[in-house]
């Protein structure tokens, strides 16, 4: 494994508190007159052990920002440093290995492999990395997400909420530097969605899991320690912990402008 993939032991005071740092990140598609600017120069620090929510209307660039931070998309310009590693210069295989070690991902549509059991789905990232699962950690995790009696079931035998719990466990199994959640409640009813949000909050509080969540649901964003608002590729608001009411008001205010 190349040295860029292991973080330097001490990256300075601020860096130790910042897991993800983005500087002047811009992303545009096409060129010239018809170019679409998804991001117009984002500066962002995601603090460790915090849950950061990114909100914004469709087309605001929030998904693009998350994809770039997770190494799934490349910025047109700017710099992204995650856990002390500048991912700008990494090629596909290095980037994949980096994702294995530092990134967890939760999808809106769960994206479990239908032919694998819940347990097999959870340990899949470790298997891809060729790492033996830590039995104690796995048991603890399964216990935390509440799937102890569902481990041998296949996704088709699980409810939507249970499937998303499997996905959360899968994202946490490798103890990533940062976990990204892409509309984690988008495909769930509000009660089940609430349970998943509680689980995410719990993983931040109890496990110290740095988490970034993209959502357009104000109730989801209300569990965050920090709520960023994106519009037209810029961060336009940056709030601390906020209630759903405050978040909705901010969104309203943004659309009025």
């Amino acid at each position, binding site marked *: 494994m190349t040295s860029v993939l292991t973080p330097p032991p001490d990256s300075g005071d601020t860096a130790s508190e910042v897991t993800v740092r983005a500087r002047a990140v811009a992303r545009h598609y096409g060129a010239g007159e018809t170019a679409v600017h998804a991001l117009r120069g984002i500066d962002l620090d995601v603090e460790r052990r915090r849950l950061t929510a990114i909100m914004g209307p469709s087309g605001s660039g929030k998904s693009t920002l998350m994809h770039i931070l997770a190494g799934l998309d490349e910025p047109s310009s700017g710099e992204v440093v995650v856990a002390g590693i500048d991912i700008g210069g990494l090629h596909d295989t290095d980037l994949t290995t980096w994702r294995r070690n530092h990134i967890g991902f939760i999808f809106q549509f769960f994206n479990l492999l*239908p032919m694998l059991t819940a347990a097999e789905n959870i340990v899949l990232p470790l298997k891809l*990395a060729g790492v033996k699962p830590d039995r104690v950690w796995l048991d603890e995790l399964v216990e935390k997400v509440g799937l102890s009696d569902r481990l041998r079931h296949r996704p088709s035998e699980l409810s939507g909420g249970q499937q998303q719990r499997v996905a959360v466990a899968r994202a946490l199994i490798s103890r990533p530097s940062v976990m990204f959640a892409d509309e984690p409640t988008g495909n769930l009813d509000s009660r089940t969605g609430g349970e998943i949000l509680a689980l995410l909050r719990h993983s931040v509080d109890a496990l110290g899991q740095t988490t970034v969540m993209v959502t357009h649901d104000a109730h989801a964003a209300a569990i965050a320690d920090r709520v960023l608002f994106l519009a037209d590729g810029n961060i336009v608001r940056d709030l601390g912990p906020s209630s759903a009411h405050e978040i909705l008001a901010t969104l309203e205010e943004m659309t009025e402008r």
Partner: protein
Amino acid sequence: MIAVALKGLLGRKVRALLTAFAVVIGVAMVSGTLVLTDTIQKAFDGIFNASYAQTDAVISGKEIVTGSQSGAATIPASLLATVQELPEVAAAGGALALIASNEAEILGRDGKALGTDGAPQFGIGNDASNPQFSPLQLKTGQWPVGPRQVALDAGTAAGENLKVGDTVTVSTLGAKHRYEVTGIAGFGGVDSLGGATIAIWDMATAQTLLHKEGRYDTISIAAKDGTSSDEVLRAVQPLIPASLQVQDSEAQAAADAKETNGIVNVVRYFLLGFGGIALFVGAFVIVNTLSITVAQRTREFATLRTLGASRKQVMQSVVIEGLVIGLLASVVGLFAGVGLAKLLTALGGDLPEVGLVFTLRTVLVSLALGTGITLLASVMPARRATRVPPIAAVREGSTLPTSRFAAHSRNTAIAVIAAAIATISVGIFAGGLGTLAVALCLGLGVLTLFFGVALAGPHMIKPLTRLVGLPARRSGGVAGELASSNSVRHPARTASTAAALMIGLTLVTVVAVLGSGLRSTVESAVTDQVTAAYILNGNDGMPFEAAEGDALARVPGVNTHSHVRVDKALVAGEEKDVTGVDPASIERFYRFTWTDGSDTAVAQLGTAGALVTQTYASDQELAVGKKLSVQTASGDRRALIVRGIYDPPEIEQMLGPITISQQTFDAVFPQPKNRFTFLDAGAGASPALTTAAAGFSDAAVHTGAAFASDYTEGFASFLNFLYVLLAFSVVVSLFGMVNTLVLTVFERTRELGMLRTIGMTRRQARRMIRHESVITALIGAALGLPLGIFLALLVTRALNQYDIAISIPIPELVAFTVVAILAGLGAAIIPARRASRLNVLNALHYE
């Protein structure tokens, strides 16, 4: 609706193309075969017709024995003079025909005979006084005159770069002479008769060289103006003896063409059979591909239904897709076949040079077969498409309802397999069926068996994957494990993809197992019959010049020798091989196993004695002392008395059913040829023998130890030819595998995106697809190899009167498995690349 279907097809160009290729190969084989065989036939017809362009009637010897080395009765020159005197006749000329008895080898500068192996080498005479009857046209130089001059056919001359004024050696009936080349001639409008060679002398020289002094093979007659050919026939008929016949030139040309046409027909149906197999495999591939696309388009069909499309219209849209693909593939296949035929004629250069014959029949048969089969194959997927309910349009992840027959599929499969085995068994074991009925039972039975196994396939996929997926799971890491579990996700899909490959593998296994059994049976039959230090054997088992045997017998160091003469004759009204042996020496080399009589029978052969095989004796109810009548190709009759009955191995009898003494043989057959010459000599004689035999174009010397395996070498190359033909079917199934994988990768786009997101490298993605492909291929092998062995054993059992050994050729079976693995790897190249190059972001957004 048609517009929707066509637009949809345009949107899936690559897939449509891949699907079409499955049909293209089969159609190309069919059209290529038709073009090739039509062309060969036309070429020969042209030659035969050209021979009689200005001829009204032809006198020739009656053909009593086809394929005889000695040829039919010849015509005395006196008859020509008589015919020329007739008032109805304007002109008449005698000729030597292009028949096996007029053999002349033109030797190249290296001393080897020119022309293609196995193609005839003719020597004929030119009658300069009657050019109108000759198919020969002088291209350069002069016609040869006298015993020192020769003309050559243009093809042979060009091939060896022989020019007028050069000297060339020609061997006739074992005698080699040098001649001056005075002319180069075309034949019937073409430069070459394919691999055949023609040496042309003046008539008298040719007659002498070919031992036909004062005799002709044919007399061509031109009628006077105002006289019909019927009148000529009536006038000639009373003049000719019973051994000759006179017929009009068209009948004569047709008779000349009969034998080549027969051979061409056999070749045609043989090759068409393999084209049919490729089309059958193609049908499997199409059913599978269309089924997958229909399943993937569930939402599209549901949307069409909500917009008011009827079930019938949905069905039509799929069938039209099949029709368009089939038509497209047939047209491409048709022309690919023409290209194939052109390539073969160019490569081989063995065909008389005429343009390719491209008939309307070829077009119609190719288009009808390709389109018809594709259409038929699209019906089942089309019916499934009609069962998509409109509500599926609005449901996330709607899947196609399972087939109505799914619940009964296991029983159906068992019933189909049972019916297939019953049909095959009827074909094999029931007595009294004609050849056609047997072939029909076997063909139909085997096709049904393939169908049945394909039906049963889905139930066997899980256990089979557990077995053949073992290496993938063991060594392939997580990619191998995922591949293994992916294989069982759509058992029906995996099964029918593997079944297409299975068909080709089953057939090559049948060929390999039967071939291996036959080979070892023949080898032991040969060793049982013959013990000799050296054996001179004709190439491809064809008879060779007796003079060559004599030449080897004279080589210093040879102690004893014995020739085996062979030719065909009518025995008791049937055409049989008659062999001539030397009673004094044959028993040193050939072991008779007597059932009636003893070794003294050989000594008693004399001028009228005969030995017959047990099989022939039982057939004809012969016993020692009974009489037999033999009639040779020239019409000679001779009465024989059975002196002994022996029982050689059934499968390879090295002597004919009737054996006479060499002395009698040489008296009855004017141009004797040898089947074998057995030689007894020390090891020291080997180089001398090899040197002596080096100049022989039609025979080679073998050591006794290597003879049995050398003897079956031609058989081995025939097996290789069959493998090549069956390889086309394997290639067709390869397209099926590519298709299925590409569609599967497409279907799992989002899943692949997720895997890449959570840490799957491109390499792992490629590996996963490769493993899945190899697993599918190995399932094909796991089904095909045992099925092939089973069928081969069944055939062996059916042929039990020949005592064919059961021999499982392990190296071949291992090779087939390796081929399957390579096929799997090959099929995975494109899909694996697609999977690894997948844009992760698009994949995640894909719905």
